[in-house]
C-alpha cells in the first residue's frame, strides 16, 4: 500500500528541524532555505504550518512544465524533477497552488520533495508528530471513523427525521 507524508499543522512547534535536516540530507549543508519543506510561522499566535509538496492527483507543476521534466515517481508517489530536462523556467514554482515547489536561492535549481525515496528524514526528527509518513488507506480509514458518528444523523436528516 502506498504511503505518503501527512502534515498535521496543529501539532507543529515551529522548530524547523525538518527544514534543516532536509537541507543536510539533500544538499550536504545546514540551510533551511534549501529545504524541500518550509514552516510558515506566526510566532506571536503560536501558529506554525509546514508546507510540503501535496503530490496532487493532477499536479499543476507537471501540467505546466514545457519540457516534461516534472514527473511522478510511481514507487513513492512523489513528484520529482529531472535535472537534465529542467530548463529552470520556474513555471512549476508559480503554478503550484500551495507554494510548495521551492527554488535554491544560490543557483535557481528546483527543490522538490522526493520523500527521500520512501523514507523521509524530516519525519524522523519531527518532535510533535506534525509530520508523519503513513499508509494512505490508514488515513482514509481514520477519516471514516471520525465521520462515522455523523452518518446516522445525516441519514435521519435525509429521511426527514429530527437531526
Amino acid at each position: 500500500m502506498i504511503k505518503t507524508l501527512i502534515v498535521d499543522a496543529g501539532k507543529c512547534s515551529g522548530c524547523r528541524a525538518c527544514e534543516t535536516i532536509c537541507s543536510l540530507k539533500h544538499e550536504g549543508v545546514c540551510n533551511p532555505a534549501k529545504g524541500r519543506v518550509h514552516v510558515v510561522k506566526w510566532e506571536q499566535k503560536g501558529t506554525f504550518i509546514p508546507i510540503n509538496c501535496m503530490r496532487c492527483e493532477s499536479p499543476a507543476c507537471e501540467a505546466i512544465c514545457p519540457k516534461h521534466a516534472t514527473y511522478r515517481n510511481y514507487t513513492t508517489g512523489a513528484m520529482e524533477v529531472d535535472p537534465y530536462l529542467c530548463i529552470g523556467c520556474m513555471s512549476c514554482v508559480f503554478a503550484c497552488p500551495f507554494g510548495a515547489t521551492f527554488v535554491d536561492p544560490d543557483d535557481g535549481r528546483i527543490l522538490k520533495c522526493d520523500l527521500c525515496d520512501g523514507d523521509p528524514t524530516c519525519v524522523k526528527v519531527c518532535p510533535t508528530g506534525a509530520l508523519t509518513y503513513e499508509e494512505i488507506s490508514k488515513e482514509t480509514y481514520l477519516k471514516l471513523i471520525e465521520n462515522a458518528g455523523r452518518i446516522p444523523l445525516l441519514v435521519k436528516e435525509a429521511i426527514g427525521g429530527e437531526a
Partner: protein
Amino acid sequence: MMNGWIGNILNVDLSEGKITTESTEPYVDDYIGGRGLGLRLIYDHYVPGTDALDPGNPLIFNTGPLTGSAVPGSGRVDVTALSPMSNLRAKSNFGGYWGPELKYAGYDHIVIQGKSEKPCYLWIKDGRVEIRDAEKLWGMDTFETQKAIQNELGDPEIKVVCIGPAGERLVQFACLITETGDAAGRTGMGAVMGSKNLKAVAVRGSGGVNVARPEELLELSVQVNKEIRENPAYLELANWGVSRSIPMMYEHSFFPVGYFEDVCWEDIMENYQGIEFMEKYQLKSLGCFNCPGRCMSFFSHPEIGKGVTSCEPFSGFTGAVWNLDMDVFWEATVLSNRMGLDGTETSACIGLLMELYHDNLITPGDTDDVVMERGSKEAILTTIRKIADRDGYGDLLARGQMAAAEKFGPEAVEKVDQIKGLAPHAYEYRAYKGTGLIAAVGHRGDPLPLRSSLLEFDWNMSAEWFQQVAKEKYGSEEAAIPTSYEGKALPAFISEHMERVADNLGICKWVYTLFVYEDAEMPTRLFNLVTGKDWEINKLLKVSERVRNLERMFDVRQGLRRADDTLPKKFFEQALSKGKFEGEVMDREKFELMKDEYYDLRGWDKMTGIPTREKLEELGLGDVADEVLGV
C-alpha cells in the same frame, strides 16, 4: 570557506555609521566561538574605565560553530558587554531563531560600539548591513517592535532581537527579547542597547552552515534528536513545561519563598494552581531552533494574551513574590516580556519592597500609595509598570535594588540580597552548600543552573543512587549531599567547564549539560563532524578553562577580588525555619574552606582570588597576565 563558522565578525560603529568585517578564523583554535570567542572580543575591545552606558561599551552578539546547524538544540546566542548592574563582564544567553538567522545572513559575531544620534535599528540581510531609522519604533513594546520591523521590510520571516520601553529608558536590568519571550534576560543588556539608541537588530539570510562530514552528521543528528525526545526529563518538559515540578522544588526547600525569607511554603504546596492553569491555557509547548526538547510553554490566555514562558518567571512571579494567583503570574510575565524587563531582577525588586513593607521599613507613602503587601496583585503589577515607565518609586528601582534601598535608609540597605550586583538565582543556598559555592565564585552574580547544583537537588529523589553518580563523576559521594561541605569544589569546576563547552559551540546547555547529556563527549563528536576538526574532549575542556580564566581576568581588571565571591549575609546568619532542612545555615568558615579548595583547583591565588601568572601562561594567556598583573 569554513565549516561550522561562517568566518565573519561584523563591526558596527553607530557613532560614525561605520561598518567593517574581520575574520573569525584567527580566534577559533583558542576560543572556539560563542561565549568564548565573544569573551576575547570584549576583553580586547573594552577600554577599562569606560562606563557601562557610555558609547564606548561594546555590545557583542556571539553565535558558535554549531549554531544554526542540524545539531538539535543549536539555536543559542551569547551576549556580552560591561554590565551596568555589576560593572563586571555581562553575560546572557538567548535562544529562539535569531542566532541561526544571523549566521545564514553571513556573520558569526556582531560587535556594536558607539551611539547613534537618533533611534535606529540594524538590518542585516545576506551580507548587506544597514543602519535604519527607528524613530517610529521608539516606545513600542517588544512584540510590537518585531511585527513593525517585519512589516516595514515586507518579510514576516525576518528575525528580530530588540529592547522594549525599559531598555529605551535605561532601566538597569532591562533585557533583550526575541519572539514572545526568549530573552537575554540577565545583566542588563537592554540598558546597554538602549544607551546606544539601538532599538533592534533584524536579520534574514539565505545562506547556510557548511558541514565537513554531512553524512555522519545527518546520522548522529537524527540519533541525538531521538535521544532528547525519549529522555524522561524532556518528556516531562514537552508535556507539562515546568509546571509540575514547581511544587516539588518548594517541597525540598530548593526554591526560596519571598525575598529568600522562607522555605517549604505550605500555601504553594497545597494551593498551587500551576497545573490547572497549564491545562486550561497551554496551546502547545515550544522550543528553540531545531530543538525537539520544547521546554517552553506557549500560553494563550483570552484576557491577558499569548507568549512563552520557561522556568524562571514561573518561580519569580509566584513563590518569590508570595503569589498563588496564576493569572497574576501570567500577566506579570507577559508585561515584563513586552516591556523588556529581566523577570528575575524585577521579581526580586518586588520581593525586596514587600519585605521592607513587612518589616515596617517603608510605608505606602514611599511607594506612591501602593501597599506592598506580600502577594498583592496590585503591588506586583503596578511595580512592573512603574519600573518600565520609570515613574515614581519605579524610577528608584530602575536604578537597581541597592540604589533604591539607599534611598529608603541604612536598614533597607542591610536587607538587599544580591551577589555581584545581581539578584541571586532563586535557589536556597543555606541547605544546598555546593550550589552556594557556585553562586559565590561564579562569573556573574547568577551563574546557575549548573549540573552539580541540580545533582544536589536530585539527591532528594534518590539519595543512594545520586551519591553513586557523584562518586563516579565528581570523585566523592559527598558531592551529591546538599548539606555537606565536602567535595564541592571539584563538581563546581567540572560543571563550569561543561557549561562553557555548550556555550562556546552555540548549543543549549539544558540539553547538553543539564538533562540529556551530562558530559562533553556528545558535544565533542558533533563539533568534529560539523567543523572537520579532530579534537579530543580535553581540548574543548581546555578552551573552557581558558575562557573561565579570561572571564576572571576581565573582572579582576575591573577590581574583583576574593571578598566579592560571597553570598548575602542572610545565608550565613538566618537559619532555615522549617522544612526538611530546618536549622541549616551556611557556616562562614566552612564556606571559605570550600572556596579555598576551589581556588586551589583553579590555580588561583587563595589570598586574592586572582589567577596566578603560572596558570595564565599555561593557558596561553601570558598577554593578559602582563596587562593585568604587570610584567
